[in-house]
């Protein structure tokens, strides 16, 4: 499975699904991460820090472990 973790900085990807359950998954859904939405990886904080994304015209920061829960199909 390709996840958001595999998307390089500056690249875009389309969400295919979200793994996991409970509050965290629901939070991601509510923030607009649903299947079909396009995400852009803006930058990564150094030393394995969080990742900055752009989606739906706003910016979101998430830890890598959360990004690993998001299945994507990469787009150029």
């Amino acid at each position, binding site marked *: 499975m390709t996840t958001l973790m595999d998307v390089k900085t500056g690249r875009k990807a389309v969400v295919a699904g*979200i793994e996991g359950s409970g509050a965290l998954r629901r939070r991601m859904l509510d923030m607009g991460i649903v299947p079909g939405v396009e995400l852009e990886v803006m930058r990564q904080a150094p030393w394995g820090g969080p990742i900055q994304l752009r989606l739906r015209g706003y910016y979101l920061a998430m*830890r890598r472990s959360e990004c690993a829960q998001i299945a994507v199909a990469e787009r150029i």
Partner: protein
Amino acid sequence: MDKVRIALIGNPNVGKSTVFNALTGSNQQTGNWAGKTVERRSGLAHKEGLVIELVDLPGTYSFTAYSQEEVITRDYILRDKPDAVLAIVDAANIERNLYLVLQLLEMTSKVVIGLNMLDLARSTGVDIKAHELSRILRVPVVEIVAAKGQGLDKLLQAAVKVGHSDALKSLSIPYPPELEEKIQRMEEVLKNTGLAKRYPLRWLAIKRLEQDPEIGQEWEVRAVVPVQAHADACCSTGNAVSYDLKSTEDLPGDVLLSELAQAGWGQEEMEMAFADAKYQYINQILPVFKSQVHSGLNLTEKLDQWVLSPIWGYPILTGIVFLAFWVSFILSAPLGDLVSQGMSGLAELVVGVMQGLSIPEVWQSLVRDGMFAGVGAVLAFVPQIAIFFVLYYFLQDSGYLARAAFLGDRFMQMLGLHGKSFFSLISSYGCNVPGIMATRTLEDPKDRLVTILINPLIPCVPRLGVMSAVTAAFFPGGQGALVLVSLLTISILLVMFSALFLRRAVGQTERSAFVMELPLYHLPTWRNILQLAWVRTYSFLKRAWTFILAASVIVWVLSSFPQGVPMNESWAGTMGSWLEGIGRPLGFDWRIMVAIVFGFTAKETTLSTLGILYGVAANASQSIARAMTTAMTGLGAYTFLVVYMLYIPCLATVVTTYKESGSLRWTAFGVAYNLLLSFAVGWLVVQGGHLLGLH
């Protein structure tokens, strides 16, 4: 007079508080939502002979049952049924903002939208046509610029009008056929039940399909701590109340739910399908009212290229933190001195009048050395506290603090802390009480408890003030700076150690999370910042004439009686001699021990207590510290600084810990942990110092 009740909702960072502050002015009340540790703000506005009660609901992204804020918000809308709901929407971020509005429209039709930050949206090349949005959603949409107060009158008028009218036929979000079919089946099951009388049927059906756990729960509010004005010394948080689950209704529809689950529509699929469908609908209507005028790098992206850069991000962060502390401590020093001088001048004046009235010397001493000295020493910290919180809220409102959390999250993650703990720990440098209150935004109770318990290890502004005065007296020049840096390093190391240790102690096994919006940068409004900073400063001020006045008088009495004996034979001296045994391994004399005990009421009293015990004018912090140099060695002073920084912060913090954790056991644990840790580290410093041949 006619009264209209209007609730304010919106995503975080959309200017909701700005709207609330502008509409209600100083007519505000702050408290807690019954049984919850979520702040409740309400206020009054007057318009054309009407009294309008505005209730500021917590900023949320959704209305799920997963967080306290969201439950409170939706409960208020559904159960308390306000006359109208004002939804503040960020035009620059319209897609995600409308997601909340769509959920709101499923609960009530009496909605008015305040379209804010259209100027910011236009600067990023986005334009929104308010009338088109209004036509589609079938509710009034009013353009506002909350920061400048523009459009707010119109907004309020529209809300009052909606409040007076009957419920309108509201927009019903068209879901895809496979969802509509399930909603209808669930509606069939629910329509003749008691639940359907309390909630809108369609909303209820959707929540039931999502298996929302909160539906059907009845809660009972029970106060556990009686109202006590002084229990609330630092920051007004309302009363501690417990919130007990009274009964859980057996919900109808289980048969249908299990049937759907077997067909591959379990809770997770349902949640995803409904979130997806709402966003699909937004995407579908978006082109009607939103247009991209131009694109290109906006201000936020330009700034973030530097602010979040792997190379420049950290130097900028360090620079801003350094600047913030420099302004709060060094630049504010003359103001603090001015307060001190004012207080001692005032004391002389009052004592002069007392002499004129030939009031006995004892009473004169009580006023001068007890009351004015103690309160004055504390009031000198007011400028520092005020400036710190003005800067803190400026950084928060402007959007920078979220970036700082982004950069600092690697560190939080290493400690197993939730990303949002960062905000709590930073504001603890101002005062531990708001720091502990800031943990309210953490959803996981164990994450919250860990963060609450490590907060006291962070030295607050008054503690840092006392520490720098003592440091300056014992370690002049560059040595002093080195000492302070080493002390701060010790505190950070202990925060790290404690975070890891307390996670074990609390039994937290869940992985901590971090999903945070990085808002667009914008210039905050001064009104908002000053208002927030004033709340913090005022609660500190309030302490001065409650706790601190009482503590100063008690110290004065203990050290002045029996009269005419040397200080070490006074009551305070006797008390100190009992405590000397505990202090001896650390090289503390009885005065230090007494000061440590009294520091518990409020740490900023430590200097004035020492002043009284050393018999120097207590409103000049420099001279107190200098008096200590005759009684202590360098190593002794350093040990004192370490213990002072780490032991129980103050009564207000302990009270807040109890209120926020709701557990006497964990509060006691926190107190014991701080005491043991401070004396253990102090002992290590003494032993280490001896080994190195220091004295």
